[in-house]
């Protein structure tokens, strides 16, 4: 092990379109150390430009960088682009790139790499890329450090989707002219980031070493990051407790274990760093078929579910009641409103029963109004507990629910291809902008059999479609916010889903490590500022 030594104090002040990055505290950071991070499950590949799967992103975000990074108020700050400018009509975006940036193989990073990454890779092969970059028709590269996006129409959400996790910048010289999807660099990525890919022992770990030629002076501080794969959750908890692993996020550490670990003097926990994924736990109705084609029945279920009970008993207190389709993380930008139909009321079951009576669903033998099958999200134990709770609540309404738990592939096909379900639990990430994360669940054009995590409820309305289309092209944040306020009111009233709570993930980490979670990207950030304090 190398001895930790403090670096000479340094300051980095980067001017970015009127924004100034906070200067780091001088001389606090120490060089050296290895961070072992739990990644669960093991990623299939490291081709983050083809899959946005969480585990892939957790590793590749240290290797690849994007044009922009983001601060906790969800505002873009400079990344590989030192500055950028959007034209008044929103149809031209000009980026000025950082100078002296090199890929891990020593070749310089230039505007040609940006053009190639976006037009040839992300717009064609990324799961969300065709939507994100739909308006980008051409990219001009007048010189090595200038990139001009030419858009067919304004796309205000575009600037939210340029992080290293979402839109990684790839080395053109390694991918051009090859079958990009089958590229060997998909398993051994070469980027510009603070850490270089070294080796991947399948089933065990991925090793990333410090990039000594990183463009940010003095960074990164850590010598090495190792991503470890441990399939059993109890063992993951033990590895963190023993200090064999130092950080685990998303659901890598089971919620009940988080409480136990948090009591240890060596461990710190935080719920920050998930602001750009904004997940909401839901119940999805199939609105095509009775009984959930009836708005009153859907509203009744929404009234009956106690947000508090779910958060406290199933998710051990991590969560915040959700009010509608847009996560309250979007409050700082004005897109979120809580002024909608409120289902989270104390006498919910009573209200629900009355609604069902009004809708004409009389109680029959044994007090049962009707029977349904409730499908459960196949992502682990908490989803089964959640299903059991919903089953109990429905019983109070005279709805007899049978629970069905299948494996991921079967469940996805049932919900998103066959539409062969009545009521299913689900969780959907709101992502960095509603256009990317939210519209897909409500727009009529997003009813697409075979495509996962889009509109499977079958619900849509001409007015909400229109509002979403407006929000997609509206450049003025105030006007856009107004559009979303109306959208939320209409959707919440129609209740195609029950928005139960905003899921709060917890990152558990060893106190030796500082500055791990420094942006809304959380574990999807580059860790260039992370350091070990021994």
């Amino acid at each position, binding site marked *: 092990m190398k001895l930790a030594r403090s670096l000479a104090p340094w300051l980095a002040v980067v001017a970015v379109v009127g924004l100034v990055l906070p200067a780091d505290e001088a001389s606090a950071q120490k060089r050296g150390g*290895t961070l*072992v991070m739990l990644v669960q*499950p*093991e990623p*299939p*590949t490291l*081709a983050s430009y083809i*899959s*946005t*799967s*969480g585990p892939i992103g957790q590793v590749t975000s240290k290797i690849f960088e994007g044009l922009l990074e983001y601060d906790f108020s969800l505002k873009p700050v400079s990344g590989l682009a030192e500055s950028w400018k959007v034209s008044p009509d929103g149809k031209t975006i000009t980026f000025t790139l950082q100078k002296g940036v090199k890929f891990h193989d020593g070749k310089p990073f230039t505007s040609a790499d940006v053009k190639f990454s976006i037009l040839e890779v992300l717009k064609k*092969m*990324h*799961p*969300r890329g*065709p*939507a994100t970059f739909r308006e980008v028709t051409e990219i001009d590269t007048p010189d090595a450090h200038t990139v001009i996006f030419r858009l067919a129409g304004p796309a205000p959400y575009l600037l939210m989707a340029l992080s290293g996790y979402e839109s990684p910048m790839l080395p053109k010289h390694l991918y051009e002219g090859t079958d990009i*999807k*089958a590229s060997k660099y*998909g*398993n051994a990525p070469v980027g510009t980031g603070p850490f270089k890919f070294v080796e991947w*022992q*399948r*089933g*065990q*770990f991925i*090793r990333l070493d410090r990039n000594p030629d990183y463009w940010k002076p003095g960074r990164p501080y850590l010598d*090495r990051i*190792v991503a*470890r*794969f*441990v*399939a*059993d959750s*109890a*063992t993951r908890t*033990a*590895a963190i*407790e*023993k200090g*064999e692993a130092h950080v685990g996020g998303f659901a890598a550490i089971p919620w009940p274990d988080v409480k136990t670990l948090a009591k240890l003097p060596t461990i710190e926990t935080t719920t920050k760093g998930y602001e750009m994924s904004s997940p909401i736990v839901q119940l999805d109705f199939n609105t095509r078929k009775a009984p959930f084609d009836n708005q009153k029945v859907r509203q009744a279920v929404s009234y009956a579910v106690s947000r508090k009970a779910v958060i406290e008993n199933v998710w051990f207190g991590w969560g915040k009641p959700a009010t509608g389709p847009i996560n309250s993380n979007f409050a700082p930008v004005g897109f979120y409103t809580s002024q909608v139909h409120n289902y989270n009321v104390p006498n919910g079951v009573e209200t629900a029963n009355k609604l069902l009576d009004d809708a004409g669903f009389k109680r029959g033998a044994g007090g049962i109004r009707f029977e349904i099958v409730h499908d459960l999200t196949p992502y682990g134990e908490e989803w089964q507990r959640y299903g059991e709770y919903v089953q109990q609540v429905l019983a109070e309404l005279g709805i007899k629910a049978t629970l069905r738990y299948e*494996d*991921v*592939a*079967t469940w*996805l*096909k*049932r919900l998103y*291809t066959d539409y062969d379900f009545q009521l299913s639990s689900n969780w959907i*990430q709101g*992502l960095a902008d509603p256009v*990317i*994360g939210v519209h*897909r669940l409500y727009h009529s054009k997003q009813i*697409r059999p*075979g*495509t*996962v*995590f*889009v509109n499977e409820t079958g619900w849509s309305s001409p007015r909400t479609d229109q509002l979403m289309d407006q929000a997609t092209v509206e450049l003025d944040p105030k006007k856009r916010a107004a559009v979303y306020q109306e959208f939320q009111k209409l959707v919440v009233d129609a209740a195609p889903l029950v928005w139960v709570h905003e899921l709060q993930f917890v990152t558990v980490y060893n106190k030796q490590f500082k500055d791990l979670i420094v942006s809304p990207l959380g574990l999807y950030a580059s860790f260039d500022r992370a350091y070990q304090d021994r």
Partner: protein
Amino acid sequence: MTGGAGRASYVLRRLLQVVPVVLAILVMNFLLLRLAPGDAAQVLAGEAASATPEYMAQLRQRFGLDRPLAVQLLLYIKSMLVLDLGFSFRHNMPVLELILGRLGPTLLLMVTTLVASVATGIVLGLLAAARAGSWRDTLISILALVSYATPLFWLGLMLIVVFSLKLDLLPTSGMETVAAFHEGWARVVDIARHLVLPTLTLSPFYMALYVRLMRAAMLEQAGMDYVTTARAKGLSETRITLAHVLRNAVLPVVTMAGVQVGSLLGGSIVVESVFAWPGLGLLAFQSLFARDFNLLLGIFFLSACLVVAVNLVVDVVYTLLDPRIDV
């Protein structure tokens, strides 16, 4: 009558018989797996948490999932005939490479477990049989019963809690200390330390069977005529047991060990999962849920080959242990 040449032609004959069996296994596996709903493209898109229709279509086309089932099967058999295990699109890697990477750790755990469980099984069975009915016999029988009945995941986690968290003697999981990246002998020692708990977890279950088998076989052999003859010759009891009875009694144990090599591959999914051991069982388990059929079929193929090969070895070992058995 049984010379080296006879043995060689026997082995060859057996190998030829294997070919149609393995081929039938392949076709059945292929068809059975297609019964599972959903496909690899859906799982990948599901993991990505979002996808456009274009993206899904691209994936299916690349994976060959857009072709008719019969064509997919024919293509698969064609490549298997030249021992090409195919490509795992999920991992973007040849199946063979993926499997070979896991084979070493799997064999390491399997062989250690097999040796540990057979050795302790034989010794304990021997000790129990030598004083059948005594308190020692009862104690060993209870131990065997408890070992057999203990759930593997529970035992594994308890061992972690005791030896790793409380006593701080051994690492919790993994095959080596990833923060250190040891080399040379330090690495060997490191891997050995990581091997202790998985072996301790997996061995007792198999050991229990061998104890029972060994004890029963020893008692059965002890009443045979040749033992009376040996005793009449004036041989010591120790020599009778070790040189004559043991050799005969060990045959059923060897048979059982051969049969269990196959289940040891699969039975270690739990242990691989609890100890994060990079073995084949867990890989197979994960590829099933990911609908990564090329990889799964490759693992099935390899397991089938392994079981067949081990059974062949067992048959040959028979002839060495007991020269009366003819090939």
